[in-house]
């Protein structure tokens, strides 16, 4: 039962990632095409452009949402791969909790940095 909901969430996050990550990829890599179309984001990997984006709440919010969704999708997928080896119930519990702890640490750290850079 629980795994059914986890799998449903995997599908939903997959669709969300397809949308959000496409926006992210287009903005980061197709800057020449975007400036041709009238959206100028000035060499997105330069320090100046990056720190300008970091000061906007919209970008920080988008990145934090993307981080949460991607971490769920990635770590749940990794868990599914590991569980295909059919470990015992005790091992499964260890794997699940390791992944939950790792994901929480990654999320907290990845949220702290953009929030700190909002004023930095």
């Amino acid at each position, binding site marked *: 039962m629980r795994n059914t909901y986890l799998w449903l969430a995997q*599908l939903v996050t*997959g*669709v969300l*990632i*397809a949308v959000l*990550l*496409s926006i992210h*990829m287009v903005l980061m*890599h*197709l*800057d*020449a*095409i975007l400036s041709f179309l009238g959206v100028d984001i000035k060499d997105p*990997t*330069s*320090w100046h452009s*990056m720190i300008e984006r*970091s000061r906007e709440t919209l970008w920080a919010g988008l990145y934090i949402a993307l*981080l949460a969704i*991607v971490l769920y999708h*990635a770590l749940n*997928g*990794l868990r599914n*791969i590991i569980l295909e*080896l059919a470990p015992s119930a005790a091992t499964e519990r260890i794997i699940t909790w390791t992944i939950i702890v790792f994901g929480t640490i*990654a999320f907290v*750290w*990845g949220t702290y*940095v953009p929030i*700190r*850079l909002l004023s*930095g």
Partner: protein
Amino acid sequence: MTQIQPRRNYLGALGWIWAGNYKLERYLYIFHRITGLGILLFLLLHLVMTTVFRVQGKEVWEATMEVLHNPWFKVGEYLVVVAFLYHALNGLRLIIQELGFALGRPRPPIYPYKDSLRRKRYWTILIISIVVILCVVFFYDFIAGGW
């Protein structure tokens, strides 16, 4: 008296890279898994790059960018883009299958079997993926000046 053996279709860990006599969908699944693990590796590097090296100020960030403009990282970025597109498109195919969108009416399984899904769906997606990958590589190379 020979005992009928159940069909052995559990390939174990070897089944992650080799699928024997299985059909194309099994190989699509293997590629889905490989690209997923590759993107996970990229995600970890990307998170470290955009947090640890970003909070340390301008000099550290620009030194990191200098390292990342190395041709080897460019090759890696190409692989990540291809893997992401494959994973996304195959994932959409899997969602269509799972939820049963646009698959036509189900038929009773009477020989000879007519399985519209197995006939068409993955060839369509494969062709779409190849087209999209070529488009992105083309845009990145010639318009955005990737290299």
